[in-house]
């Protein structure tokens, strides 16, 4: 390459852009905690020595090694906010994918105290930074485990004491499948400009005001922001969900340049 890349040589964190430089090579992290989030999802707490910090929405690459040396690598969205307490502690929330190669192991087996190779943080597009992005209203639309990176954004906002108006629309199959339901309620109850709407696509509780169905255009319009406010829009979930919701928001007048998407392909797992 002819162009020198000075970011590699500079101390990390000096400029926002430096965070985009992915640390070279793999390092070993230790699983120091795990929390069940639902019947099929778990949050893994990893101790990563020398973690350089991250932006909400970035990923962590994990590399798993079998006894014969075979390795499998996957990217997981970081769930913890940038200012999570304790140095070098980061969290990922993993949803078990049926017939997946990696996620069933991480959700059901990966024992506390054991080691795993990690690399990150990775990605600089699907991110929200309370320093750079404060003040512009934010619409977060999440389908299923697509909640994880946008939850990191909500956590970044809370941890920094930021009051940027946030609206979250969360589409999930059933009440039992919800991730972080209590925390979402607490965030909304603070009265500091964070609103969350959750809809169920497969089954609802007896007291629900809405039957189980997919997120509709009018729900996105009424629970989101008008396009005239020029919000930043983040949409994350399975491909079909992201395609459908991004078509809706563009049809509602949102500039595609302000719509950032992240899709989980059918191969996730």
């Amino acid at each position: 390459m002819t162009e020198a890349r000075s970011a590699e040589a500079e101390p990390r964190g000096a400029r926002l852009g430096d965070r985009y430089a992915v640390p070279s090579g793999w390092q070993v992290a230790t699983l120091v905690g795990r929390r069940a989030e639902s019947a099929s999802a778990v949050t893994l707490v990893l101790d990563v020595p020398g973690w350089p910090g991250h932006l909400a929405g970035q990923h962590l690459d994990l590399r798993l090694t079998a006894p014969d040396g075979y390795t499998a690598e996957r990217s997981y969205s970081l769930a913890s906010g940038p200012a999570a307490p304790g140095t070098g502690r980061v969290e990922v929330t993993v949803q078990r994918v049926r017939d997946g190669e990696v996620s069933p192991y991480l959700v059901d087996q990966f024992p506390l105290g054991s080691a795993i190779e990690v690399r990150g943080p990775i990605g600089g597009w699907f991110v929200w930074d309370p320093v750079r992005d404060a003040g512009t209203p934010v619409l977060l639309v999440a389908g299923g485990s697509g909640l994880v990176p946008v939850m990191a954004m909500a956590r970044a906002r809370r941890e920094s004491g930021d009051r940027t108006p946030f609206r979250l629309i969360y589409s999930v199959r059933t009440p039992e499948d919800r991730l972080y339901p209590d925390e979402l309620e607490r965030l909304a109850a603070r009265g500091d400009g964070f609103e969350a709407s959750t809809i169920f696509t497969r089954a609802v509780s007896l007291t629900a005001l809405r039957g189980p169905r997919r997120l509709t255009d009018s729900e996105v319009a009424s629970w989101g922001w008008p396009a005239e406010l020029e919000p930043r829009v983040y949409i994350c979930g399975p491909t079909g969900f992201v395609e459908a919701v991004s078509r809706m928001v563009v049809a509602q007048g949102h500039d595609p340049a302000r719509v950032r998407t992240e899709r989980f392909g059918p191969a996730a797992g």
Partner: protein
Amino acid sequence: MTSATPPVPGGSDPAGLDHDPGAALTPGFRGRARPEGVTLPPGQYAEEGFPVLSAGPTPNVSTATWSFAVTNEVGATKSWTWAELMALPQDTPTVDIHCVTRWSKFGTRWRGVSLDVLLAEVESTAEFAMVGSYGGYTTNLPVADLLGGKAWIAHTFDGAPLHPEHGGPARLLVPHLYFWKSAKWVRSLTLMPTDRPGFWEKLGYHDLGDPWREQRYQGD
């Protein structure tokens, strides 16, 4: 316990690892049956479906207004309409593709126009190109990786018009590099004497992106 620790896999620098020798890496992980009869680049797994990855909404691009333009380093432009593209000699490559998010798909069947055809008459000594898309996406590639039967403007996948989610009406196809280089909704190619990073490359991804050398991120 130490004897039970699996070897650190290839590419790592064991001396650089801050690793408690008493803790085995991912104990109990077995992984899937190893794929047979195919060769996967390091860190990839075989995928039967065709996952979609895009940074933003899928743009609507009509073939009625579509065009593809090549601009050289002194600003001279040559462009093709959809009808002109279709009138050029067509190739039908069957290739393996490798996404940086770690899926690989074998034996994908495409139809399109070789960059050798499109760039044949372009006057340039540039070593690098920036490819641009409807919707604003960009990616940089060495010209050497676009010539010699290695890259196409593809408009047909598996015998059907390329779906917009996958970059239709036409995308760049450079299968020997990670698939983010194969820009969806392609509209332009600008030749540059020196390399400049495109969209993902500015965000930490590699300037070349050779999956066989696992060049995922800058510095790999």
